[in-house]
Each structure stands twice: as structure tokens, then as C-alpha cells.
């Protein structure tokens, strides 16, 4: 009951006309940027972050929810119409959705993606509403030792479980940890690795790293290694879904949500596993296996509906560890954390007590954002598709100009722009040799947190390292970490793959 009344207050704040307007603007901008090929939600949110800087926190949060949902929908649109997924979790959407588009069914593919995202987003937000306060209460009992254990688990899962090579995941994590080291040490006050460069004392902004790796790195990489393909654009057909489409989509949406939310809410990071899992589930359960890409079919609508729902549900699920523990488990969540800190909000168990109004406004705005997305984007999808007709030079030049404005706008420092360029080149090398990017972003944020918690834990135990073994919760989380480290190589050795390769 307490939740309901808090939520009602949140809705009252979020539904004010001016805030709704911010939501619409956010949704428009998020879709406009997110629809551009090669740009995923993390980058969209990073690029648009400075825009929200001077809006009051409530309005900004609503705008943010709009940007976030808009970016996700924009990504699905490009995947379906152009077959250029902006991030790995929309790869499955591209697989079946683009096949549908090639067979003249782009409209229903887009519709099932949009409605499915809305359904999944709403159910996941409902689960978030119910679970987050419980987790937050639980998390209040966690001491530094438990936090440290959870952080180590998050590091490990984000870098070891995803991607083709655990070693390269760890290399990316290492780079992230190194970046996180730069700046003032919060405990001793010593400036570490600043090499007398004043700009480095405050550390390096996560948005800068994300924009460098994603936008600049991607632009340079595509120039160096990607041939300009004559991308076939598919005509937009009627968005109308047939009765049969609905019958096949609805169960897939629900299953996708149930698969996506739990994966998002544990600190395992990434929407890759749940989307692939949902896809293979749909393929096994489908009464129309002949439609799937693997059987050279015409594209199966449940193969779009399920993974899209899973993707959205897991994105919402990742807000659970973010809001209750302050731990981001994906690149997008890491950028969101930076956004919260912009508004002087420190996510964590205390957030529900110190800024409960804002938290519930955010939750309410997630519900509203879902609806805004549906009423705004589905009718406007033709407009977003037109954006794709911008010639490649102008598209990329525009993205780079936006990246520059975003990074420069944060601190007004030319040094940051040089750093962005350097990180862009690091991004090219990483992309070239298949180093995952998310561990860099997550590592640079979680590294300093882990160090702080480790120090606190050892202060409490008076320097006794056994505290991590003798305290049951911390010990079991660390044991789980060990399992996560050992299982993938074991599975691999036995010839079992976690990913479906095509």
C-alpha cells in the first residue's frame, strides 16, 4: 500500500503538462538519434545527456525515460529496415525482422517490436515497482564486505560471460580499471596518475569514454574497414498486424519479458543472453518453424516479438541493481548512473529514503515513457525512416559534431576533446580485434567503488582479510563468482556454446 501511495505521488509529479512535454521531447530526440545506423541506446543517452543538464530533476528524469525508450525503439527500427543493429542485443531483431521486411512485412515487424517493447516495458516496470523497494531494504543490511563481493561478481560476469574470449573481456576490464584509477583517491586524497595534468585530477568522465569508444571509434573503424555497401532499404508497409500476428506475438512478448527481467536484474549485465535465449525459446515453441531464418523462411514474427520484449524487460530489469545498489551492469546503465550523479542523486539503498519522491517520479515516468513511445513513434515511424536517407558523409559528420558538443559541453575543456580522439583510436583497435566495449565502461565506474568498499571492509575487520570468507553472504557471492569464472571454459571444452552463432 505504501508503494501505491508513493507511486501515486510520483505519477502526480510526472503527469504535469510541462513534464509530459519534456517526455515527448526526450522521446523525439531519442528516436531521432537512436534510429541512425550504428548508434545504440548507450551512445544515444550519452550524446543527449548534456541537453538535460539544466532542466529541473523531475523534468530531466522524464525526458531521460523518453530518450531511453526512444533510443531503444530507434535501434529496432534500423535493425528491421536496414539490418544494421546498433548493439549486439538487437542482432536477433535484425535477423528475423529484416527477413520479414525483405518479404514485404516491415510494418508488422515494426509494430510487434514497438507494442512488444511497450508491453514488456510496462510489466517489467511493474516488477521493478514491486521488487526494488524490497531489494533496497535488503541492501541496507549489506556491509562493505558484501558490496565488495557483489562488485567483484559484476566485474566478472560482465567481462567473462559475454563475448567470444574471456581473456579479451578481461583485457577490456583492465583498461576500464586503469581509466578508473586516474584522479583523486577518495580515501587518502592522493592524486593518482594525473601526471601533473590538472584536467585529470577530477578523473575521466564516463560519457567521454563512451562517446569516444562508440561514436569516434565507430566512425574511424567504418572508414578503415567497412566497405560502403549498397544497403537495401525496405519500403515501409502498413503497420497493421493481422489476427494471426497478434496470436503469435502476445505469448512471445510475455515469455520474452519473463526471460528478460530476471537476467537484467541480477548483476550479470547485458541484454545479449536473454535476447538469444528468448529467440531460441520461440524457435522451439513455434508452430511455424518454417518461417524462421534458419529454415530459409520469410521471417517469423515471434522471433521479433520475443527478443524485443526480452531486450526491453532486461533493460528495465537492470534498473534494479542500479537504483537499489548503485551498481551499473551494462554500458547504458553506466551512462544512466552518470546522469543520476548529474542531478546530485547517488543511487543505492539510501536513495529510496533520501530521494524517494524522485525515485517514484522516475518509476512513474517509465510507465508514461512506454505509452509516449507507442503513441508518438508508431505514427511517426515514416519520419524516422526518412532520417536514414541522409547521405553517409553528412550522417557521420553530424554524429561527430554532436559527440564533440556533448563532450565539450560537460567541462568546457579542449583536453577532453583530445582525450576523446585518443579513446576513439583505442576503440578502433578494440573493435578490430573483437575486444568487448561494455567491460571498459563498467570497469571504470566499478573499480573505484570496489576499492572503497574493500578499504571499508578491512577497516571494520581491522585489517583481517578473512572477513570475506567468514561472512556468509560475502563468501557465497565470491563463491558464485568463482563458478562464473570456471563454467564457461568448462562448457566450451565440452563443445557447448553460450551463444548461437549464425
Amino acid at each position, binding site marked *: 500500500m505504501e508503494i501505491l501511495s508513493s507511486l501515486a505521488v510520483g505519477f502526480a509529479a510526472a503527469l504535469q503538462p510541462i513534464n509530459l512535454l519534456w517526455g515527448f521531447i526526450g522521446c523525439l530526440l531519442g528516436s531521432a538519434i537512436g534510429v541512425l545506423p550504428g548508434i545504440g541506446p548507450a551512445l544515444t543517452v550519452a550524446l543527449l545527456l*548534456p*541537453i538535460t*543538464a*539544466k*532542466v529541473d530533476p523531475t523534468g530531466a528524469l522524464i525526458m531521460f525515460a523518453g530518450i531511453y525508450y526512444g533510443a531503444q525503439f530507434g535501434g529496432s527500427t534500423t535493425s528491421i529496415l536496414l539490418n544494421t543493429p546498433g548493439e549486439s542485443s538487437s542482432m536477433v531483431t535484425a535477423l528475423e525482422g529484416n527477413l520479414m521486411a525483405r518479404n514485404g512485412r516491415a510494418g508488422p515487424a515494426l509494430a510487434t517490436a514497438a507494442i512488444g517493447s511497450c508491453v514488456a516495458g510496462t510489466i517489467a516496470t511493474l516488477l521493478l515497482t514491486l521488487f526494488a523497494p524490497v531489494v533496497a531494504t535488503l541492501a541496507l543490511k549489506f556491509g562493505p564486505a558484501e558490496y565488495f563481493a557483489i562488485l567483484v561478481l559484476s566485474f566478472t560476469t560482465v567481462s567473462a560471460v559475454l563475448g*567470444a*574470449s574471456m*581473456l579479451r573481456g*578481461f*583485457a577490456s576490464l*583492465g*583498461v576500464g*580499471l*586503469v581509466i578508473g*584509477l586516474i584522479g583523486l*583517491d577518495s*580515501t*587518502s586524497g*592522493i592524486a*593518482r*596518475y594525473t601526471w601533473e595534468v590538472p584536467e585529470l585530477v577530477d578523473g575521466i568522465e564516463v560519457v567521454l569514454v563512451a562517446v569516444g569508444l562508440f561514436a*569516434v571509434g565507430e*566512425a*574511424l573503424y567504418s*572508414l*578503415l*574497414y*567497412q566497405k*560502403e555497401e549498397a544497403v537495401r532499404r525496405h519500403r515501409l508497409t502498413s503497420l497493421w498486424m493481422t489476427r494471426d500476428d497478434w496470436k503469435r506475438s502476445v505469448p512471445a512478448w510475455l515469455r520474452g519479458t519473463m526471460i528478460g527481467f530476471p537476467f537484467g536484474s541480477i548483476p550479470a549485465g547485458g541484454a545479449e543472453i536473454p535476447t538469444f535465449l528468448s529467440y531460441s525459446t520461440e524457435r522451439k515453441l513455434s508452430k511455424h518453424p518454417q518461417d524462421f531464418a534458419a529454415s530459409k523462411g520469410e521471417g517469423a514474427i515471434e522471433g521479433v516479438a520475443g527478443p524485443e520484449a526480452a531486450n526491453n524487460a532486461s533493460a528495465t530489469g537492470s534498473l534494479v541493481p542500479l537504483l537499489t545498489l548503485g551498481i551499473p551492469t551494462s554500458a547504458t546503465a553506466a551512462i544512466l548512473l552518470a546522469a543520476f550523479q548529474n542531478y546530485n542523486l547517488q543511487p543505492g539503498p539510501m536513495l529510496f529514503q533520501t530521494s524517494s519522491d524522485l525515485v517514484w517520479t522516475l518509476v512513474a515516468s517509465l510507465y508514461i515513457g512506454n505509452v509516449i513511445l507507442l503513441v508518438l513513434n508508431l505514427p511517426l515511424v515514416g519520419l524516422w525512416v526518412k532520417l536514414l536517407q541522409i*547521405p*553517409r*558523409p*553528412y550522417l*557521420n*559528420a*553530424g554524429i*561527430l*559534431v554532436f559527440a*564533440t*558538443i556533448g563532450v*565539450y*559541453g560537460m567541462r*568546457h575543456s*579542449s*583536453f577532453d*576533446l*583530445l582525450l576523446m*580522439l585518443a579513446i*576513439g583510436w583505442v576503440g578502433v*583497435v578494440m573493435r*578490430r*580485434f*573483437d575486444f568487448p566495449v561494455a567491460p571498459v565502461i563498467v570497469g571504470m565506474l566499478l*573499480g573505484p567503488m570496489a576499492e572503497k568498499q*574493500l*578499504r571499508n571492509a*578491512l*577497516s571494520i575487520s*581491522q*585489517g583481517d582479510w578473512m572477513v570475506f570468507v567468514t561472512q556468509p553472504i560475502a563468501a557465497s557471492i565470491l563463491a558464485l563468482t568463482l563458478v562464473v569464472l570456471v563454467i564457461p571454459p568448462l562448457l566450451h571444452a565440452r563443445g557447448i556454446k553460450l551463444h548461437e552463432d549464425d
Partner: protein
Amino acid sequence: MPRPSKVVLTQLAVGTSLILISGVLAYGAFRFPPEMGFVILSAYVYPYAVAAFVGCVGLLLSYQAITGGLRNLPDHDDVAATTIPGGKAGAAWVTVGLLGVALLIEVIGFVLAAGLLFAFSARGFGSRRPVRDLAIGIALTLPIYWLFNAGLGVSLPHLINVWI
């Protein structure tokens, strides 16, 4: 799966740079000023740990690079893949544009610097009409400038510097 044993130099360079970074971290940690008072875990402990971690990863990557290349790369012919024709020139244009905007933004002002970046990047991606590109770039950045400065109160540097 037996692979022909070969050394992939670019990959070896990635591995050795990580080892190098590890060395720099350790050297830096060694030079931290001493801490005062009661210290439970010194400011250099975690950096040393990160240095050790990065060093190990660098060694393993180098080992893979020497013994046939990184494992499980997505395209198996990727090692042989080279840059596409004109790719390097394009990347150079973009790099110079970004370098230029970093060095010039506080000198010639926001709109001109961003306009130049736009023109350089468009050139990098194959456009051959510099004057038109510059005009489009400026036309694009002007409204952004107004939006940020007037609408949102985020101050960007001057439109163009007054003394130009």
C-alpha cells in the same frame, strides 16, 4: 583445431602495450607520496593489483599473438583483412578534423570550429564539396548553439570570437 603457427605483430603490439601500461601503473604507484596517520589499505595497494592484473592479461595476449593469433576471432580471415582503399585517408581527415576542433574551439569559436569538423569529417566519408559542407556544418551548429545557450543555459564558447 590446429592453426598455422605465426606471429601476428599488430596483436602482439596490443599485448605489449598492456604490459607497458602495467609497468607505468606500478612505477606511478611506487612514486605516490607517503600517507599520514592510520592507514588500513594504502592508496598504492589497489593500483598495484590492477597493474598485476593488466600485466597478466597483456602477457597472455602476447602469448596468443606469438602462437598463432588471438583465439576465437569472429572472422577467421580477419587477421589477413586489411584496410579498404582510401580508408586511411578518410580516417586521417576525421582525425585532423577532431584534432582541429580540440585545438581551435577556444580560438575561433564554437560555430566555426564545429563547422570545420563537419566539413573535414564529410570529406573523410567521401564528400567532395568542401564549401557546401562547411555551409551545412555551420547551418547545423548555429541552431544547436542557440538551443544550448539560450534554451538550456549550457554555455558554449562564443559563437565566433569577437576579434575575428
